C-alpha cells in the first residue's frame, strides 16, 4: 500500500465518525482492530469523531455513523455528515435498523417519558426534562437510511473488529466491500 518511489505521497483519507442513538459499542469494536490501527492511521486521518473531539464535520471521504436517529440533534448531525462525506456508512445494528432504541417504537413517546421520569419507583414529584438545550426526541427511532442516502451498510451488534477491518480495507482499496467468510452477523 506504500506509494511508489518518486510519486507524491498519497493524500490521507479523511474519516469522521459519530454515535447517534447508539451505545458507542461500535466505536469500541472499531478499536478492536487492534494493531491494524497502526496500518489504518497511515491511510486515514480522523475528522470529527469521539476520538479527536473535533466538534463540526468538515469535507471528508468516508463517514462512519453508529446508531439510529432518535432526536432532532441526531438528524442535524446525520445531515451534516451526508453533506460533507463522499461515502457514508451505516455502522452496526442501530444505524441499520434502529436497533435497541427502536424497541420503544410501539409505545407512545409521552408514555415512555412519563414512565421513566414520573412513575418509576422511588421518584417523587418527577418532571419530564424540558430544558430548551435538550434536543427534542422524535416520536419514533429511525434507521439512518430512512433519513439520508446511505452508501454502505455494515450490520452487527457490534460488527466485529475483523468485519470492520475487512470492510474498510476493501473500501480504501477501491473494492466493493464484502463481508464473506462468516463476517456477516446481525447479532
Amino acid at each position: 500500500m506504500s506509494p511508489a518511489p518518486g510519486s507524491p505521497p498519497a493524500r490521507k483519507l479523511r474519516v469522521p465518525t459519530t454515535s447517534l442513538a447508539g451505545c458507542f459499542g461500535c466505536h469500541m469494536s472499531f478499536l478492536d482492530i487492534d494493531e491494524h490501527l497502526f496500518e489504518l492511521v497511515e491511510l486515514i486521518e480522523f475528522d470529527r469523531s469521539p476520538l479527536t473531539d473535533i466538534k463540526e464535520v468538515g469535507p471528508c471521504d468516508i463517514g462512519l455513523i453508529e446508531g439510529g436517529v432518535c432526536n432532532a440533534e441526531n438528524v442535524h448531525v446525520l445531515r451534516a455528515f451526508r453533506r460533507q462525506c463522499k461515502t457514508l456508512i451505516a455502522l452496526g445494528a442501530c444505524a441499520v435498523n434502529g436497533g435497541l432504541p427502536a424497541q420503544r417504537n410501539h409505545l407512545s413517546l409521552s408514555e415512555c417519558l412519563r414512565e421513566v421520569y414520573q412513575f418509576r419507583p422511588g421518584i417523587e414529584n418527577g418532571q419530564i426534562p424540558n430544558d430548551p438545550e435538550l434536543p427534542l426526541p422524535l416520536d419514533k427511532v429511525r434507521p439512518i437510511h430512512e433519513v439520508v442516502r446511505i452508501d454502505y451498510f455494515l450490520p452487527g451488534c457490534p460488527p466485529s473488529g475483523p468485519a470492520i477491518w475487512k470492510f474498510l480495507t476493501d473500501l480504501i482499496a477501491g473494492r466493493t466491500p464484502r463481508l464473506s467468510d462468516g463476517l456477516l452477523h446481525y447479532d
Partner: protein
Amino acid sequence: MKQFLLDGQPVPFEDGQSILEAARQAGHYIPSLCWHKDFPAHGSCKLCIVKAAGRHVSACATPAKEGWEVESATPEMNGERRALLQMLFVEGNHFCPSCEKSGNCELQALGYEYEMLTSRFRHFYPDRPVDASHPDVLLDFNRCIFCELCVRASRDVDGKAVFALTGRGINKHLVVNAESGRLGDTDFSKDDLAARICPVGVILRKGPGFAVPIGERTYDGQSIREQKLKEEES
C-alpha cells in the same frame, strides 16, 4: 429416470415430486422458510422462487416436469429473494441482538446466505404484544412471518389446533385459539411439535435462553445451505 435442468445441472425426479424436493434430494439447495418435508407445500414465503420454463413459480408447490430448464441460483432470483427477506424484516420487529433465537433463526440465516446488509425499505415497527401466559412457552409475535408451520403442526400432528392466522393483507396476524386469546388458556404443551417447529423466534421455550451462547449456534459456524443439505442426507 425423468429429469429437469436446475441451473444447467440435471436433476432426476419421480412423478409428483416438486422442484424443491427433487433438488434437495439431489444435493442442490433451494431456500425455503414455510416449507417442511412432513407437510404439504404451503407456498407462502416465496423464498423458493425459481424461474421454470420462463415463469416465476414457487419451487415447493410446482411439480417437476421432464425437460424443464429451471433457474434458481442466478443473480436475478437471488436478488428477488433478498428483496423478499427485506420485506419480511421491515414488516415485523426483527431485532436480532435481543432475540433468543439469534443464531438458530432461519430468517436470519437466509439474510446471511443472501448477503442482506440492510432492510432497505421503511420499517413498519408494528405493535404486537407478547404472550407470556403459558408456564413453559413464550410467544413473541413481533417475529412472526406467517409461515403457518405452527398452525399446521398443531392442527395436523398434535391434534389441538392451538394456532391460526386471521386478518388479511397487512392486517394478517397469528392468533391463539382460546376465548381469552392467551396461550396459557389452551392445552398447548412444550412437547408438542408446534412448540419446536417455528423457524424464527416466535415460539420460545422458557428457560434455555442463552444456554448455548451466541457464536456457537447452528448458523454461526455453518450456512443454512450446508445445514439444510446435511439434514436432507440424514
